[in-house]
């Protein structure tokens, strides 16, 4: 399965995504999906077998192979394993950055990952690269929830488990507009200081939270309910960019969460 994303101007193409039952949950950037138009992209990620070219590479810890502009890595964590190669790290204008990613033999079959067969590729490889690429374009990925009202954004920053999502959901219930429950982008606007850009990573999950839950603790009944909701909306799915709108607002009012 292929997908093309446009993240506020950064174009990312992914190929070889698993045929997941819920593609919008599997692919964290699903909300940014745009129709394929054949134009060049800034970042390409191919999931599938590949052969690395390790000639003239320096070796670190027998896990990383590096030479100028190139990095190959082999990692394992919690019974999952993967290898990936990143080309074009020293940016050449006009040349896209290329990532090849290969799952270990068991990744896509393991229990917790049934809903997210490509989570490893997103979390451990795409995400850090994306963060660098966005930063190179003046957009900084901030680990915070964001809401908007009357043209002003409020960020709710905090470590995982401090109920960022629940706070954002509460504010949405009271008439605020959500911009993302886990991440937002901070960008500079030439004229008027900082701007906050929406970066919703899992809208369907957020919707479930919004409709069915009061806090973030996922009890067994909630899990059953989640499966039921997912099953019921199996055919419908979340339309890209349907539930949230991109907001560019300024100035920001920054507030630190608990």
């Amino acid at each position, binding site marked *: 399965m292929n997908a093309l994303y446009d993240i506020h101007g950064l174009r990312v193409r992914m190929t070889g995504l698993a045929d997941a039952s819920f593609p919008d949950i599997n692919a964290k950037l699903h909300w940014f999906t745009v129709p394929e138009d054949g134009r060049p992209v800034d970042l390409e990620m191919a999931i599938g077998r590949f052969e690395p070219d390790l*000639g*003239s*590479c*320096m*070796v*670190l*810890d027998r896990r990383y192979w590096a030479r100028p502009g190139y990095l190959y890595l082999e990692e394992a964590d919690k019974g999952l394993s993967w290898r990936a190669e990143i080309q074009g790290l020293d940016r050449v204008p006009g040349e896209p950055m290329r990532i090849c990613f290969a799952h270990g033999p068991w990744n896509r079959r393991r229990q917790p990952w049934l809903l997210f067969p490509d989570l490893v590729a997103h979390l451990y490889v795409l995400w850090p690269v994306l963060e660098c690429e966005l930063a190179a374009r003046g957009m900084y990925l901030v680990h915070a929830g964001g809401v908007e009202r009357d043209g002003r954004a409020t960020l709710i920053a905090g*470590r995982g*488990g401090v109920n960022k999502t629940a706070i954002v959901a509460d504010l949405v219930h009271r008439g605020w507009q959500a911009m993302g429950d886990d991440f937002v982008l901070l960008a500079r606007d030439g004229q008027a200081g900082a701007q906050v850009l929406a970066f919703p990573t899992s809208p369907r999950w957020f919707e479930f939270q919004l409709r069915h839950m009061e806090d973030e603790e996922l009890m067994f009944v909630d899990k059953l309910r989640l499966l039921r909701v997912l099953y019921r909306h199996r055919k419908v799915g979340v339309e890209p960019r349907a539930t949230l709108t991109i907001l560019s607002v300024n100035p920001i009012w920054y507030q630190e969460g608990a």
Partner: protein
Amino acid sequence: MHGTAVTPIIHNYDFHGLLSLRIRRRHVSWADSFLDSTFAHYRVEPSGREPDIDVEVGPFRPDLRGALRLDGRWYVSPGRILYKTRYKVARWTTEIGGLDGPHLKVRIDANGPARMVFPGETIYSLIRLRLAEKGLLLLHGPAVTHAGRALVLPARGGTGKTITAVNFARRGWGFMGDDSSILAPGGVRSFVVPFNLRFTYDVARLLGVRFSPAKRREIFLKKCLSIATLGTINLFSRIDAREVFGPNIVDEAPLGAVYVLIQGPRAAISEPQPAAAIARSVLINTLFEADELRAMLLAYCYGNPESPLARLWDDFAVRLAERLFGCMLRRVTVPARYTPDVFEMVWRQAEEDLGRGARP
């Protein structure tokens, strides 16, 4: 709890008069010999002064009142942090107090396997932290001396640090430690800890020594265990560096050269490099190694962003670049197979670099 409760055993250590460490423990078990041997080279009689780092090993009841909880793992309050660490079957809880003052008060509650792990993790982190606050940099790389000046060899584990340092020492160079060295304002200070060797090497031949029959038997048994379990159980063998290189140990020398060792396709030595580039390599190498300290500081400074500890690595980088200035700085590429001619190449270059500088 292992062993029996007895009167506490207290050991005092002093690192070149720059840093003092006291370790008290309330239990006796074979696993503690690990802790005792780690810093044995720096053991001193008690001085009566309050040590920079005061460590108490044994079970304790943590006081979490008023502490921020981060990620379910870190408990942070002003000047204090408590966290749990796991490494395979080793589990230990560390509480560090006095982070905003001159004396660290540390309590460590470790299970049996953890007593072999935390000296190299938590105690190293504390030493690295306290030294860095005093402007002294604990670098991850051995140091050797020739013609009165030191050569530091920072490298990632597995590149060939130990072999290189040992080979230098066997050719009569001064030996300042095979794992780390301290970069102080006046030069390099030794950091001699026991060798941790795995059985990919023939240990005795590598070190050029004959072990006692008991030690030989121990090494043989560990080797059998490693082969029988197909390498799953691969115990380290600790060998006291002072027994092997006793007369060669040098405790202090001005810095003459830094060679950053990197594993690469073929052996090569670079032209002299600018201080900024080598300082960055050395800093990254140290950060790679200081996992626990890095995470601990992130957690502490998240809760206490005003603390000077938030700038620790920035200051570290600045001091490092200052101290490398004017030295011979090179990058050495070492192939995966470390052959005698690789060392020969490094040795010739080092002899030239340090010898040349020594002439008036």
